[in-house]
């Protein structure tokens, strides 16, 4: 039996895989003691199964855990007292950052504080040059003096990022040794070991964040393991990573930054799996709709893309880590996003959110500003009596009133038109996020399947697909718990990389092949170590390359072959020009290519994935009036998810609902329930799409 536990802001989701059967359980997150929330979820699952919690836990062989614990600690600055050590002359790396700004005529935004204050930043007398040459020897006595100072300052963690340690780590390593001797009880992170990427700010930022999380995450992980053991669990504990894989919990404790962005990284893993299971499309756009944000990623040929440029917090105001993580774009548009009309009469949806507290107006918990969820309730998409399976009734009158006074009247629309406008605008903001990422990845949405995940996904997934021209949409049965589902099917995986520059003008075959051989060894060691006993293991090489004097690299896949000959280089060159053309509409086939770094990712599939199995539906259904923008009020069939007969081709307008989600099937769309339980939709074009520029959203950029 295997478990996946995803600790979210509101709910802790537990997925159990038991001899070919999957089940989902939810319990409230306990923010002050997240492990308690996990144990509670097991209690809920045990009760539903009619067994004792210990009995359930004892049967488990593996638990894959995702948590926002590290991320929340960073965002709220509740991290260890951390010192930053860097090359003399450059103390302001974390303060000066990389420039750039947003919303330039809004003068109310304060400049971000450095992650480590200047008063805890210390300069190390030393310098390595761009070619790795030692320009100034390390002053070891000065380091010893610094160690004493750090002791006096009661520092709890140390981040070391010296200039060009990625070209020659000799000084950084020596500083690490000295600190280990002199401050044996204080955890240290060295930048070149953690994140060997060029650009000192982002490397320093990743290093500082990693070090600052070590005391906290070490304590959390050992607490988790200990309490799970005491409760009866004797299996292996893995944690999901920002790269969309899993690592042993002990490895994450040693480098906690691995888990920092793991939340949004799991949806594409699950989305890829279900897209492969239920469709034949070569590309999937995976969308995860939460309460406040809409997260999008693009999976192409089964490959989950990564980026070095994800922000922790807002762009230009949060922290950039340069740490490879799954490329997920986020816009502030979700079920709780607030709709408002500005002084000039322009409608906006988000980025403000009513969050979980007070939540939408219809929750009756003190929310006064209308949200996307309120609009969907007014439109008839939500059943006020069946929200969360009927556990909590919704106040439709309050939602109507908020939309009437705050949206309909200022815009001069009637109530349903106004609610439809909110829905269209939210849809358009989500479409914009997809267009941005698919454009940058060179993906044509018309060739892709749209995978809708998250509890609020179903409100407009079909509308989004229409607007983008997607031919297929799927909402997997595990969709509302997409992250936990992703954790369960994630692979044990780890990437290794080496910076080694060469150019096609004088390609260093021997040098590159030595680097690739070393990477292959490290990948093999991972497969033989943590990956021992895997069902299947694979390695994939790639290179980061650019045209001369470009500074942003593109990733080029090299397959499983860890060696390059003249022919292989020709293939690699051709592939680079193609990737460049896909990304930027132009290539420069006459130009040499410069290679910057070489990568390998080792993947170990730990178990055979279990396919969900749906029961056959009994075909019962109700009917309810819903309002579809551009069509008007129509009578729609309302299906409970489990009642939809498997394999039958059904037509919209319809609503498919379960305790955790509601799927709106627009007029003219055709849907089928697959044997896996997935709802598969062919969106069609429909009267609605033809009549209006379906979609709708957005704040003009100056209009916030």
């Amino acid at each position, binding site marked *: 039996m295997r478990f996946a536990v995803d600790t979210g802001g509101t709910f802790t989701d537990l997925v159990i895989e038991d001899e070919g059967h999957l089940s989902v359980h939810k319990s409230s997150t306990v923010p002050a003691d997240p492990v308690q929330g996990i144990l509670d979820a097991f209690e809920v699952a045990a009760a539903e199964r009619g067994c004792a919690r210990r009995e359930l836990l004892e049967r488990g062989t593996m638990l894959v855990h995702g948590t926002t614990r590290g991320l929340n600690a960073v965002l709220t600055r509740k991290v260890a007292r951390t010192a930053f050590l860097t090359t003399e002359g*450059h103390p302001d790396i974390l303060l000066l950052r990389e420039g750039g700004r947003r919303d330039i*005529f809004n003068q*109310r935004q304060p400049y971000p504080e450095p992650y480590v204050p200047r008063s805890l930043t210390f300069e190390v007398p030393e310098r390595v040059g761009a070619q790795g040459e030692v320009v100034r020897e390390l002053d070891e006595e000065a380091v010893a003096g610094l160690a004493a100072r750090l002791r006096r300052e009661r520092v709890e963690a140390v981040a070391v990022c010296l200039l060009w340690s990625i070209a020659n780590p000799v000084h950084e390593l020596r500083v690490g040794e000295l600190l280990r001797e002199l401050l044996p009880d204080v955890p240290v992170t060295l930048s070149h070991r953690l994140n060997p990427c060029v650009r000192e700010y982002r490397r320093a930022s990743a290093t500082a964040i990693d070090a600052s999380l070590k005391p906290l995450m070490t304590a959390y992980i050992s607490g988790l393991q200990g309490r799970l053991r005491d409760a009866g669990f004797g299996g292996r504990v893995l944690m999901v990573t920002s790269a969309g894989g899993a690592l042993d919990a002990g490895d994450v404790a040693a480098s906690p930054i691995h888990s920092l962005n793991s939340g949004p990284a799991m949806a594409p893993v699950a989305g890829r799996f279900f897209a492969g299971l239920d469709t034949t499309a070569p590309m999937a756009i995976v969308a995860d709709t939460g309460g406040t944000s809409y997260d999008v990623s693009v999976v192409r040929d089964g490959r989950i893309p990564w980026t070095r440029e994800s922000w922790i917090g807002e762009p230009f105001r949060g922290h950039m880590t340069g740490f490879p993580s799954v490329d997920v774009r986020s816009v502030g548009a979700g079920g709780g996003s607030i709709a408002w009309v500005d002084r000039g009469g322009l409608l906006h949806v988000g980025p403000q959110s009513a969050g979980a507290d007070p939540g939408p107006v219809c929750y009756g918990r003190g929310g006064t500003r209308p949200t996307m969820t309120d609009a969907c309730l007014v439109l008839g998409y939500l059943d006020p009596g069946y929200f969360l399976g009927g556990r909590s009734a919704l106040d439709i009158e309050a939602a109507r009133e908020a939309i009437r006074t705050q949206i309909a009247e200022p815009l001069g629309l009637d109530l349903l038109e106004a609610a439809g406008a909110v829905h269209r605008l939210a849809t358009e903001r989500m479409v914009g996020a997809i267009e941005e990422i698919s454009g940058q990845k060179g993906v044509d949405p018309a060739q892709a399947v749209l995978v809708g995940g998250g509890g609020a996904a179903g409100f407009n997934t079909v509308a989004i697909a229409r607007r983008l021209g997607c031919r297929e949409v799927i909402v997997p049965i595990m969709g509302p718990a997409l992250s936990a589902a992703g954790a369960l099917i994630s692979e044990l995986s780890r990437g290794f990389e080496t910076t080694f520059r060469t150019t096609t003008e004088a390609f260093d075959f021997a040098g590159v092949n030595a680097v690739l051989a070393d990477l292959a060894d490290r990948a093999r060691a991972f497969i033989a170590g943590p990956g021992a006993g895997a069902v299947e293991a694979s390695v994939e090489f790639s290179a980061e390359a650019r*045209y001369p004097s470009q500074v942003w690299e593109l990733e080029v896949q090299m397959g499983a072959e860890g060696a390059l000959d003249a022919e292989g280089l020709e293939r690699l060159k051709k592939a680079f020009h193609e990737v460049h053309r896909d990304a*930027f509409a132009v290539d420069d086939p006459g130009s040499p290519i410069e290679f910057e770094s070489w990568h390998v990712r080792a993947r170990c599939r730990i178990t055979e994935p279990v396919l969900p199995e749906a029961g056959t539906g009994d075909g019962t259904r109700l009917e309810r009036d819903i309002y579809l923008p551009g069509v008007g009020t129509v009578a729609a069939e309302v299906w409970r998810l489990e009642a939809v007969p498997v394999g039958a081709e059904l037509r919209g307008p319809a609503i498919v609902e379960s305790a955790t989600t509601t799927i709106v099937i627009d007029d003219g769309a055709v849907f089928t329930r697959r044997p896996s339980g997935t709802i598969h939709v062919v969106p069609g074009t429909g009267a609605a799409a033809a009549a209006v520029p379906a979609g*709708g*959203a957005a704040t003009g950029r*100056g209009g916030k």
Partner: protein
Amino acid sequence: MDGVRMAVISNRLNVVVEAMMNTVFRSSRSGVLNSAHDFSCCIVSADHELVMGAESLPIHMMSGPDLISRAVLRFHPEMRRGDAYLHNSPYNGNSHAADHAMLVPVVDDAGVHRFSVLAKAHQADCGNSKPTTYMTDARDVYEEGTLLFDACRVQTDYQDNDDILRMLRLRVRVPDQWWGDYLALIGAVRLGERRVLELGDELGWDVLQEFVDEWLAYSEGRMRAAIAELPAGRLSLSTRHDPFPGIPDGLDIKIGVEVRPEREEIEVDLTENVDCLPNGLNLTESTAATAALIGVFNSIGEGVPPNAGSLRRVRVRLRDGCAVGVPRHPHSCSAATTNLADRVTNAVQRGMAELAEGIGLAECGAVIPAAAAVVSGVDPRSGGRPFVNQIFLAVTGGAATPWSDAWLTIFHVGCAGMLRRDSVEIAEMTHPIRVSRQRLVSDTEGAGRFRGAPSAEVEYGPVGTSMTVAYGSDGAVHPALGVRGGGAGGLTRHLRRDRSGELTELSSQGLVELADGERIVSITAGGGGYGPAVDRDPARVQEDVREGWISPRRARDVYGVALREDLSIDEAATALLRAEPASARPPSQAS
């Protein structure tokens, strides 16, 4: 058109211009583009109205694309699909010669010109007589030496016109780098063209035209509302640029601002200024108008889309043949985006700040210091290949606002902090240089209730070769002023450190040859403060001392906050200090 549909279409056009920006940023070759982000992308209507610009350097954008669109149409009345035009004439709507603008008409299937998409990018080199894109000392355009393109068709039917491209190859330094940047620009405008064509096909061109009208009316309405809330006022402002070649005593600039809330409009008068100067500082029609507009938008523009609609409410009066107006050929406008332009913007936002609390900004620091020089030479690491590029190390300069301390890395007021900074490692990887120091200088902030940015100190030099460093910075004599009682920011300064470590003072502008082992030290300008320094929350002053932004002495002398040895606040002594009349304290100037 309802507010919903307008929001939808504006969002979609914004996605288009952002996609164009991404193409230039990621695929260009020179650091000024692919690291510093010194470019902009926008969509203008067929009748030359700025409809949608990606958020980028405002000095590129607010007025300029409209003028360029007009210039291209004047010479090429028939717009055909597949054409592309290169334009950089400062006498015909461009910002300055170093910004290459690429314009592509969006022509529908019926052959009707509907929109134009533009991408404008600062070049690493534009063929000037010296290796810099800011020829501040050029007596005229001939001495400047730049290659000028006045609405030149560089593509027909999507094919390059090699005649013109070959000219460029012969006249820009490091032609392969330029070629890569040209490809990036073409990639961006072609992407924009395709996306707008798709949008027109999908929504209908009439709908898009209706959108343009309503969107501009909406934007104008937002600006009307913002101006209506201002107090009425007539301001006679003056500011002074430092002595430079051609202006040995510096230059006074006079600006009249009239705020007419009852008519919901603002007028800025730049006509009372000197005729064109015998140097490269002359503004262009685009940058003179935009400089004034940025000052207004920085003061009141929150939430107002900057486009042709909102700009209608601000009238900028310019005079032909004026250094701060419309230039006359052959006067040089090589540095038209920075020095005098920044003076105009800073004075306008300072003036607006004096109107009332909660409006305007202090002044931002002046540029362009050697910390952001154009560097050139040959790179010994690549067998002696030539290099030329503008580097972007630490330039601070942010102004204090009515609500917060300065945005530290604003760089200069005309770019609004949109320029990115090179990392030291990328700068050292792409040029044969070493940056030995880069840090803030304490006690150089414009003091105030909210403080301006302190100066930065940057020191670097060539490694294994010699190198030319070209820069030209205002602000060595006349600092960025504070407002409403706030202090001025630190002055700029340049020094040469020779091989023995000796420092000698350098001029504020020019080309400096550095031998191997020599270094240049660039102290950049601080930004002005907002409000009296003695009104600053003592806890913030304490924090500033703890974090090394200011010394305990400055806390006491300028901010009137007494700190004990352990940096705790001595409340009684602070109260006494703050009770002193202002005249008893040293002026809250930067040291």
